[in-house]
């Protein structure tokens, strides 16, 4: 792929501007001052630990979005990352809290357990799809809900949980399992396992673009029939993609769990999965694109705090997230159509089928609009 900078960067910029405009209007209607609001959103980055928090959140978002993207690459819609990371997180914390190992090794074992647990929970929809033809959309919706029950069961005090104050959680990890972060003093601490997302991102890119497995995965996504004729085993790919997706999802919660919380509580936030889906789509399943998507998402998330702080309805942030997702894809689509037309024009010219005196037929681009 040639990197056409303008066509890659322009659409998201336009889309963010459009979404900001939309939300600005909504703010005006509700009597708030949009400029002040946007000012606060920008200013927050320099305040307190916000910049670090954005980085930390995006590390988490990045992992979950990668997990979603792995499935998307072969048109598998793994809504189940939500359940997979929860199961992985709680299993890893239970195991991690109940063993004692030297520092380093301890964390490593926890990471491994999380990966395996995430993959195993993803194995259910994978097997159901491969052998029973059950749509992964339904099965993962169901398994997400069931995961809540499993987690609740596991953190019961008479099972693996402990009761602290008014809250249930897993046993606290011994210090040997903690992963220290990079402390930036008052600006906060960057999670050590943030590195995990960088590694996962590089691994994802290499796997998708440079290996046989990635090729087979993408080929299956593009055309299952052509992939089969090319010797790709469809069932095996479904299972492999789903397991990989679940394994990556399993990593999601680890940066914050090993870096800050050291225990999985009943209040552990839900909904990373859906953010992950939106971010993967925003980043167009591309390792770098997802990184930007995750940063943007985290930035908007944190903006809710800054807006609340100056008395602006923070719900505007959710609207903005939705508007951005929609307008980014619309913008990309428009650019794609223009480019496709340009490419066809180029092909035509090189094959000599274009009349020299033609007026440029660029008007047809985007002409599908009803």
């Amino acid at each position, binding site marked *: 792929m040639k990197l056409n900078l303008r066509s890659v960067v322009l659409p998201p910029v336009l889309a963010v501007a459009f979404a900001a405009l939309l939300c600005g209007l909504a703010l005006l209607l509700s009597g708030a001052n949009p400029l002040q609001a946007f000012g606060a959103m920008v200013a927050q980055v320099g305040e*307190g*630990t*916000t910049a670090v*928090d954005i980085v*930390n*959140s995006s590390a*988490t978002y990045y992992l979950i979005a990668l997990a979603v993207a792995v499935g998307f690459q072969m048109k598998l819609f793994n809504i189940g990352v939500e359940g997979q990371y929860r199961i992985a997180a709680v299993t890893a914390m239970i195991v991690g809290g109940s063993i004692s190992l030297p520092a380093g090794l301890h964390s490593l074992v926890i990471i491994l357990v999380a990966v395996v647990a995430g993959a195993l929970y993803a194995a259910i929809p994978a097997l159901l799809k491969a052998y029973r033809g059950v749509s992964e959309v339904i099965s993962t919706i169901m398994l997400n809900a069931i995961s*809540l*029950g499993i*987690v*609740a*069961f596991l*953190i*019961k005090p008479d099972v693996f949980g402990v*009761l602290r*104050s*008014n*809250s*249930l959680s897993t046993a606290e990890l011994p210090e040997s399992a903690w992963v220290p972060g990079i402390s930036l003093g008052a600006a906060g601490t960057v999670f050590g396992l943030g590195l995990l997302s960088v590694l996962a991102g590089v691994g994802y890119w290499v796997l998708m673009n440079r290996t046989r497995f990635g090729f087979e995965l993408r080929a299956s996504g593009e055309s299952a029939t052509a992939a089969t004729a090319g010797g790709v085993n469809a069932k095996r790919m479904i299972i492999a993609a789903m397991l990989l997706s679940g394994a990556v999802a399993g990593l999601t919660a680890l940066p*914050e769990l090993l870096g*800050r*919380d050291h225990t999985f*509580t*009943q*209040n*552990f*936030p*839900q*909904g990373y999965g859906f953010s992950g889906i939106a971010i993967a789509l925003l980043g167009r399943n591309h390792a770098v694109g997802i990184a930007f998507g995750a940063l943007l998402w985290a930035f908007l*998330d*944190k903006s*809710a*705090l800054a807006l*609340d*702080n100056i008395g602006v309805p*923070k719900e505007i942030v959710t609207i903005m997230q939705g508007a951005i997702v929609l307008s980014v894809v619309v913008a990309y689509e428009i650019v794609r159509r223009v480019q496709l037309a340009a490419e066809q024009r180029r092909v035509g010219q090189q094959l000599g089928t274009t009349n020299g005196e033609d007026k440029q037929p660029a008007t047809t681009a985007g002409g599908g609009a009803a």
Partner: protein
Amino acid sequence: KDSGAPSGGGTAAGSPCKLAPKPPAAAAGTSGSKTPEKADGSALKVGLAFDIGGRGDASFNDSAAAGVDKAITDLGVKKENVKELSAGPNESEDAKQTRLRQLASDGVNPIIAVGFAYADALKAVAPQFPNTKFAIVDASVEGAPNVTPLVFAEEQGSFLAGVIAAYKTQKCNVAFVGGVETPLIQKFEAGYYQGAKAAAPDIKLDKKYLTPAGDFTGFQDPSKGNAAANGLIDRGADVLYHAAGASGKGVFSAAKAKGVMAIGVDSDQYNQKTVEQERDVIISSMLKRVDVAVFDYLLAVAKNDLAALPKVFDLKVDGVGYSTSGGKIDSELQAVLEGYKAQIIAGQIKVSDKPTS
């Protein structure tokens, strides 16, 4: 067309309970004896970090806000010196920390965190601002001397709710609807059961939690509250006590439709606007006086005497209690309740905060 009248009620028949001997009448005036104290809070910059919902949730956030409002009128806290921020659903830990930090670095002092979800965040933030006073509702934070816990003896209030239920049931069969099966809500259940058993040893008890710990939709789903309540009523219960947040509205409407009674929670739900239509089924509400706790805390801060605050807001300090609006608690029952209350205050009855089963 169905009339609004109860349609048959439950299937199981029953009769009122055989009641345990009534407790000795309490010495009058154990409560309300506190003389209103005065202090000057005009210099205070008060911060409130709400849990999801914020001011107006008709629940503990609102109650906390009421405490601050009272401080504005009674202690002279300036309205413009009160800063309120509230949490969004599914927000991460660092968001809570940032919220607290935002308040603290703005020079707000004291800061009240509403809800045990703030416990971990406070543990991290409070040490960073050793000169700021923090308080947290429903939790305690170990190892942070500048954090004052504002915790309640919900089980004690619920005990009285259980007594009310035992005296009111016609079938000697009462039930509890919990929103989410967390330790906090289990305290309500535990106290309620003990109270009911104490008043009527033969009473039949039933319960249903809408969702398990971690799935907080149980506080937000009146449909489920309604379904669960209907199930309990059909199995014979005719007094329902709920600790299910907004889902409790479904409990009230089930009670109304089937002609049974219900007990509200946290605030005096009889006077709550959103359940106006069903309020005639509400016998009483178990009051959890977050407002009292918050006010007392602010008072203590204004007087610079935090040590005077109770460790637990219980029956003794009117941190929990019961409401009588609606007139369904007659003076006879009230005397019984006051009797039990006195016994609890005196330590003759120990109410456990864990369900037995």
